[in-house]
């Protein structure tokens, strides 16, 4: 009984949450031939993982406890960490929560979505491996362990990108991702090795204790290597073409993981090295680095997205654009900024997951994601349309959905930073963020017009609504999008504020593992006040009253005063107006819908098009140049 109580103590839950995913993966590899056994195993392991993480929310996020877990109870000896450790603070758990929710929903969706593919066994094996890798990475308290988990997730992601290897460009995308991804992993490994040579430890807490006091050329180089390495995982500029390629080819359920979770793990790594390992975020130049790369990602990727005509490729570019928001906000190094960034990270996982699932639903039913070949699906797939619109409104920041709540905090944070620091550069960032948001809206107007509204092209008359399982998965995300949008105060006070507090409380993180954290400079006070006011619930209430009264008046005054019978539908007055021309299909393609905008920026767009050449050597060169620049930067300023 005592043994059982010990085993079920929540101290062990982090490792369980990781292990059930890997265990599920291996069991499916062995017993997965049977469809039912496979689905049950997959569902069991993702549900168990979600359960373990949810159980940890109470002690870690609410009570602020830090779980320090030494594998095999090998605690530090002689002042040096020799065992492998998991360390779960509020920040880790925050990301783990994102991971487990996204994994759960995408797993539920996969069951129906992948039913027309063969090799489902391999799919689930790799899928759970990927999820386990991400989960392990965010819960790990050990730099080398993080590297191993990064490698696992990179491999699984590459293999899953190439999973549908008959899809156009799938193998090509996987190869590019593998090459640049491995360059990134190599960077992380070299960085780890250099830090080990300097400090003789791999434990994160101990590194955080030793590294900041001993910054020399070697550790500066290590910083650049780690930063670029985690940058490739987050796909921030200049690694964004890989994300676009990978998302376009991977199954939608995998895109959810890559975009919603894998990129977050890159952000997690960047937060860990900048705020914890090097404790360098107090430096204005370091803030500049993060905000600069974030803003660049934000703007370049949203303009790249405007030029796309593939549904999933477009979503992929948007996903990096939103990661840019997260990185920018996190890079501000203010309580409001970090809180806003983490809030946007949750929201991005939710709405981008929803959008990818909607894209997957369209692909599942029509067989294509080319915006020029689709149209008018709202009549055939009404539920998917509504769910897609929720996602589209969320990402474009239409109130009261969640994207608005977090973007609004990002604007406040950047503008406040600009005012407080007197630096006009942050003002520019605010403006870029606001303009990016409206460009995001534009490209989702494009998608909703070219996929769901407009005219139905020939050959799509047979399209049906997707099955209940897929709709259910999308609905989970949609409900969460609305809830996190309507109750921003709950989200900030219960999720993002504890995580932000953890970010600013490095000493506690070090001491929880039994090391000396007294050298850490005093943390920034973590309390923030909003500059503006936004009360979504009251607004929604007023809007509902207003809408209700218009509707009552409209219905009362016979707004829709002719109910059309089926027979009348063929009458000529119900045909579309063509100015006297013969009626024919004239759906506007999504390709160049906003030419009025692009025409003025044609130089930029042509240049960008040439730059994203699709040659893997170019992308590798960008990675090397990026590494060189960051290294130069860190040598000068750190």
């Amino acid at each position, binding site marked *: 009984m005592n043994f059982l109580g010990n085993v079920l103590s929540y101290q062990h839950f982090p490792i369980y949450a990781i292990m059930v995913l890997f265990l599920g993966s291996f069991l499916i590899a062995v017993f997965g031939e049977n469809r039912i056994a496979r689905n049950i195993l997959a569902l069991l392991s993702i549900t168990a993982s979600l359960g373990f993480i949810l159980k940890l929310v109470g002690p870690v996020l609410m009570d602020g406890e830090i779980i320090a877990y030494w594998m095999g109870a090998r605690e530090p000896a002689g002042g040096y960490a020799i065992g492998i450790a998991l360390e779960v603070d509020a920040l880790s758990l925050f990301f783990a929560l994102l991971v487990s929710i996204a994994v759960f929903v995408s797993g539920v969706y996969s069951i129906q979505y992948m039913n027309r593919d063969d090799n489902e066994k391999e799919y689930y094996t790799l899928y759970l491996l990927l999820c386990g890798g991400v989960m392990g990475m965010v819960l790990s308290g050990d730099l080398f362990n993080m590297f191993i988990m990064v490698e696992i997730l990179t491999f699984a992601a590459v293999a899953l990108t190439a999973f549908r290897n008959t899809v156009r460009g799938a193998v090509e995308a996987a190869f590019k991702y593998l090459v640049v991804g491995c360059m990134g992993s190599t960077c992380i490994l070299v960085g780890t090795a250099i830090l080990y040579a300097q400090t003789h430890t791999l434990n994160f807490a101990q590194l955080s204790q030793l590294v900041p006091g001993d910054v020399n050329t070697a550790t500066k180089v290590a910083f650049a290597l780690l930063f670029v390495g985690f940058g490739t995982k987050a796909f921030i500029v200049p690694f964004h073409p890989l994300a676009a390629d990978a998302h376009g080819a991977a199954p939608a359920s995998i895109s959810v993981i890559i975009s919603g979770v894998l990129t977050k793990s890159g952000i997690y790594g960047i937060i860990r090295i900048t705020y914890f390992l090097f404790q360098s975020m107090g430096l204005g130049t370091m803030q500049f680095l993060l905000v600069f790369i974030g803003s660049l990602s934000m703007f370049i990727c949203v303009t790249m997205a405007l030029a796309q005509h593939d549904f999933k490729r477009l979503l992929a570019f948007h996903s990096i654009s939103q990661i840019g928001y997260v990185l920018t906000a996190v890079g501000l190094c203010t309580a409001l900024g970090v809180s806003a960034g983490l809030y946007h990270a949750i929201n991005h996982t939710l709405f981008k997951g929803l959008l990818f699932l909607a894209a997957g639903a369209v692909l599942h039913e029509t067989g294509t994601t080319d915006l020029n070949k689709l149209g008018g699906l709202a009549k055939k797939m009404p539920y998917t349309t509504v769910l897609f619109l929720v996602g589209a409104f969320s990402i474009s920041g239409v109130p009261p959905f969640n994207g608005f709540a977090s973007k609004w905090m990002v604007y406040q944070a950047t503008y406040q930073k600009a005012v407080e620091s007197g630096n006009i550069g942050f003002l520019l960032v605010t403006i870029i963020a606001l303009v990016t948001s409206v460009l995001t809206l534009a490209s989702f107007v494009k998608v909703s017009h070219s996929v769901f509204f407009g005219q139905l092209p020939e050959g799509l008359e047979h399209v049906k609504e997707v099955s209940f399982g897929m709709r259910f998965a999308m609905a989970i995300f949609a409900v969460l999008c609305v809830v996190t949008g309507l109750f921003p105060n709950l989200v900030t006070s219960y999720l993002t504020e504890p995580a932000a507090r953890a970010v600013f409380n490095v000493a506690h993180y070090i001491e929880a593992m039994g090391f000396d954290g007294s050298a850490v400079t005093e943390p920034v006070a973590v309390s923030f006040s909003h500059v503006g006011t936004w*009360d979504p619930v009251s607004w929604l209430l*007023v809007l509902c009253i207003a809408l209700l009264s218009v509707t009552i008046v409209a219905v009362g005054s016979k707004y829709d005063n002719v109910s059309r019978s089926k027979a009348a539908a*063929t009458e000529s007055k119900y045909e579309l107006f063509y100015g006297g021309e013969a009626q024919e299909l004239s759906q506007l393609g999504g390709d160049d819908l906003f030419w009025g905008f692009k025409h003025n920026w044609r130089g930029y767009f042509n240049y960008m098009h040439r730059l994203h050449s699709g040659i893997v050597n170019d992308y590798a060169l960008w990675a090397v140049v990026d590494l060189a620049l960051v290294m130069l930067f860190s040598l000068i300023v750190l």
Partner: protein
Amino acid sequence: MTIVIGALQYLGYVLIFPGFLFCFLAGMLLCGIDRKLVAKMQKRVGPPVLQPFYDFFKLCGKETIVPAAAERITFMLAPLVGLAALVVIQLFIPVFGFTAFSGMADIIVILYLLLIPALAIILGGAASGSPYAGVGLSREMVTIISCELPLVLVLLAVAKTVGDEMGTGLCFSLSSIAQYQMLNGSLITKISMVPAAVALLLIIPGETGNHPFDAAEAETEICEGMLAEYSGAPLGVFKLSHAVKMLTLTSLFVALFLGGLGTGILPLDVLLMFLLCAVITAVAISFVHAVTARLRIEQIFKYYWTVVSALALISLVLAWYGL
């Protein structure tokens, strides 16, 4: 008991003033004044000032035709959502000292709330399935993008100026901006705010989609674009929304730059605000309409992102350095 009275009071705000009834009357009147003025400037007789009312009630009596190709629910719902969202924005805009719902939304929120009516008309048009609507929504969206940058700059400049004066660094709250102006005089009297005010004047016709920035609805070219398939009452509601949007933007201008003129007596204030709105309509909408020809969409974009943005930017930079 107090709860009931409070609820009734708020209901009154939504339904009567500054909600539906006020928006309906004032918006339509502004629209009528605009049409009359343009006609006078072009040496025409023009319609009577009450013509928009006649048009609206006539449209409501007409048959509503939903094209067979349209997605019915979105098509019918879009006008109503657009109108409701606009009326709700009007509730947040202070009438000098009086704000119906303060502490619920700041100017950044207003910026985003202004997108909802535009989105409603875009989605309604897209749902109709008409190719004209496709062209129209493309242009409408580009017009929104065009106006967004200068509008953002104007709002940030105002936030910075008021925040500096109040010692908080920046102030996004509309009611605080109104109160500040009640105490210290209108913002337009500050030299740094003049370019921003001019920029906002130039943005107003773009946001409302009035001539010469009406490429999205160009009647002679793409048959009113997104409205091509609308008829009857829904069309009437869209026309009403257009009128209310004129009221919203002009009263936003009054709230941001002319807020110090209030008398403190509500009926007088309302009358004053309406008169100011009419003047701004005459300057920013009617006059510009009468003397210009319609721009192409890429010209609209270029104009807003160069000339108007530059004006707003001057203001922002001046405000930044506390001039």
